[in-house]
């Protein structure tokens, strides 16, 4: 059971030493209860209290790490059912499915393509994170060969898939040191598969046949002291999988049902052969709580949209996404190209840059640091005002890149143009359109007039 702030306070030293960076022990206790502080931040907590509190303050959904080094990822640790309540924490990890029954060149091509599935967007690196390798041959030797080949060609985290503990044991001779996610323990093999995971200290997927058998399986696994678990309800159709994923998350958060206090995995690749439909399933499982989603194809037309969805859904609703403050080249601008400024709210940037691109007019787009706020909000908050814009223009080096001195500002802040003229005596301030949708017409007129 979760403890209240007051329950926790009773177990703290009550010295108000401030070393946790909070003024009082009570404030620290409240933060702990809200999941916004870690017990380790208090250097003086007693061992006794530590044990009691660790149990109570453990996140309702455990974090599980898969892989090693730069390519390891963490899944789980989620705290809410709806992202607006706080935020979703560890972005869903996308996997790509391979099999030891595939021809060598297909495996090679897929591994290579999955490795290239990496895109920078708004300062974040979006990428495929997991290679699932299924033993369909039933031949441990063949499986080991394929795992060795995949491991040699990629440093992505791996998920060897077999329900035969002997085959899994053989697989671990190849990938056992790479912290792979073992797939999977079932009711039939839990004792052996669980022992294998425990011996090597590896994360393990539990696969039920529905949410109820999964609950029973997880309870048994917990009795074996297995901790790094990932839950697969074993359902293989949209309706049942969605219901199970919701049930697991609600079970962990609303019912404090311990056997569901682990991240979940969905395998849309096993639910259909149609890639559009598979993408649709994956998109629903991303939004509705799956920590890991395994797809059948590394093709970027499928993976990139899914990655953008993950970025959207896992954005912190309290912190708008911001792009870096600098001048961006839209198209191939030269010394005569128009110069525009706007704010660094990522949506503002995307929409404005998109409309400039669509106009086919090459332009310099200056992004002023407005703490991630849109034009009107930033203006109202004093973040997109003449002195800040002038400072940005003067330090940006744009004056060396263009021969003219015309600066286009968003129509919504037309009222600052006079003051901005004074701050930037060398520049002529022009008032652009209010709506980005009208930029295209505006820029074409600008170009034909000059």
């Amino acid at each position, binding site marked *: 059971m979760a403890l209240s702030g007051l329950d926790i306070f009773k177990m703290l030293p009550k010295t108000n030493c401030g070393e946790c960076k909070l003024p009082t022990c009570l404030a620290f206790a409240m933060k702990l209860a809200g999941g916004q502080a870690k017990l380790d931040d208090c250097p003086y907590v007693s061992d006794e209290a530590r044990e009691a509190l660790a149990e109570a303050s453990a996140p309702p959904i455990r974090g599980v790490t898969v892989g090693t080094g730069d390519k390891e990822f963490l899944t789980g640790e989620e705290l809410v059912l709806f992202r607006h309540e706080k935020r979703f924490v560890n972005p869903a990890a996308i996997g790509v499915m391979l099999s030891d029954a595939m021809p060598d060149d297909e495996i090679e091509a897929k591994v290579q393509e999955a490795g290239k599935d990496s895109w920078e967007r708004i300062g974040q690196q979006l990428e495929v994170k997991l290679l699932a390798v299924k033993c369909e041959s039933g031949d441990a030797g063949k499986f080991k060969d394929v795992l060795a080949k995949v491991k040699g060609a990629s440093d992505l985290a791996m998920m060897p898939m077999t329900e035969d503990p002997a085959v899994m044991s053989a697989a671990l001779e190849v990938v056992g040191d790479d912290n792979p996610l073992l797939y999977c323990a079932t009711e039939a093999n839990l004792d052996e598969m669980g022992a294998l995971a425990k011996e090597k200290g590896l994360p393990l997927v539990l696969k039920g046949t529905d949410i109820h058998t999964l609950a029973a399986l997880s309870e048994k696994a917990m009795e074996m002291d297995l901790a790094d678990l990932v839950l697969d309800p074993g359902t293989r159709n*949209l309706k049942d999988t969605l219901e199970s994923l919701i049930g697991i998350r609600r079970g962990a958060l609303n019912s404090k049902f311990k056997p569901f206090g682990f991240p979940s995995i969905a395998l849309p690749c096993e639910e259909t052969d149609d890639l559009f439909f598979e*993408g649709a399933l994956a998109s629903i499982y991303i939004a509705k709580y799956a920590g890991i989603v395994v797809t059948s194809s590394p093709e970027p037309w499928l993976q990139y949209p899914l990655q953008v969805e993950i970025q959207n859904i896992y954005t912190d609703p309290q912190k708008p996404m911001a792009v870096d403050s600098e001048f961006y080249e839209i198209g191939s601008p030269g010394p005569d190209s128009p110069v525009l400024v706007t704010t660094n709210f990522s949506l503002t940037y995307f929409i404005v840059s998109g409309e400039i691109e669509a106009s086919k007019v090459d332009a310099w787009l200056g992004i002023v640091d407005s703490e991630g706020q849109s034009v009107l909000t930033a203006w109202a908050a004093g973040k997109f005002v003449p002195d800040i814009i002038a400072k940005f223009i003067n330090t940006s080096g744009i004056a060396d890149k263009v021969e003219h001195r015309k600066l286009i500002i968003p129509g919504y802040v037309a009222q600052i143009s006079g003051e901005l003229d004074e701050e930037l005596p060398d520049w002529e301030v022009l008032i652009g359109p209010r709506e980005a949708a009208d930029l295209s017409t505006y820029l074409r007129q600008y170009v034909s007039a000059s």
Partner: protein
Amino acid sequence: MMAFEMPKETTDSRIREVTLGTTDVKVGGENVMPFCLFEGEMPNRPLIAVEVYDDNPQEWSPVVAQPLADVLADPVAWARKAQDEWGADIIALRLRSTDPKGDDNSPEEAAQTVKAVAEAVDIPVIVYGPEDVDKDGDVLKAAAIAAEGKNVVLGPAMEDNYKTIGAAALGYKQTVAAKTPIDVNLAKQLNILLSNLGVDTGKIIVDPTTGALGYGLEYTYSVMERLKLAALQQDDTMTQMPLMADVGVESWKAKEAKFPAADEPAWGDENKRGVMWEIITATTLLVAGADIVIMRHPDAIKTVREVIDNLMG
């Protein structure tokens, strides 16, 4: 052994059931969060409205223009094809030819198209103006007259023109789509204003403004979830209107949906990428609470229909 019992959220509150058209097509009526059929019911499945334009769109990506090539210039043929071949539940007719920034056609001309389309299909029709605050009033009034007796959905009614559009809907017994900029309170406020004007709360659909995948999807997602939660868990009667997501038009604005692979090889095949962009925008908003999704590409429509079929099971 602890047996697991599914935690259920039940409520006496419901989303209002709104009748569209004249052939007993209904939307809304659910007493559960999207697709949580283990704890309640969605008596009406979410509906797919298919976009039809009246101005022969020229600027579209070939990925989406090509499959529509034979009907782009003919809204009536387009609407029939959407109904007969793609299984549209609703036609979303956009009177973009009236846009003062474009062709600036007269409301009367556009009204002819409304009448022709509404008579050519058996399914309900949504009529959207050019989204110009002033022109929309005139255009939608003409549309309301032309479609009298058809119970079409007129929109978007916005803060600055809801009186004109609301009055047209009242006068000619049509339904209203109320549009506000991605904000729970503004959405609620506009519903209150419309109902103060006399519009029946059972004849309002809420369009909370759609951000496509990569372009604010998360904002629309959370606004829809919050509107649904307020409707069902707090019994807030002014948020109990069915929700509509404008998926097609927003998805196909994204450069990621339309840039050719030749320009952006890292994004892959644009023929499939653009369709996927529209599918994900639709599916994500369906699980957030959209009761109607307005869509464009036939392949995206097909896949989203399959998703709804499977979820309603």
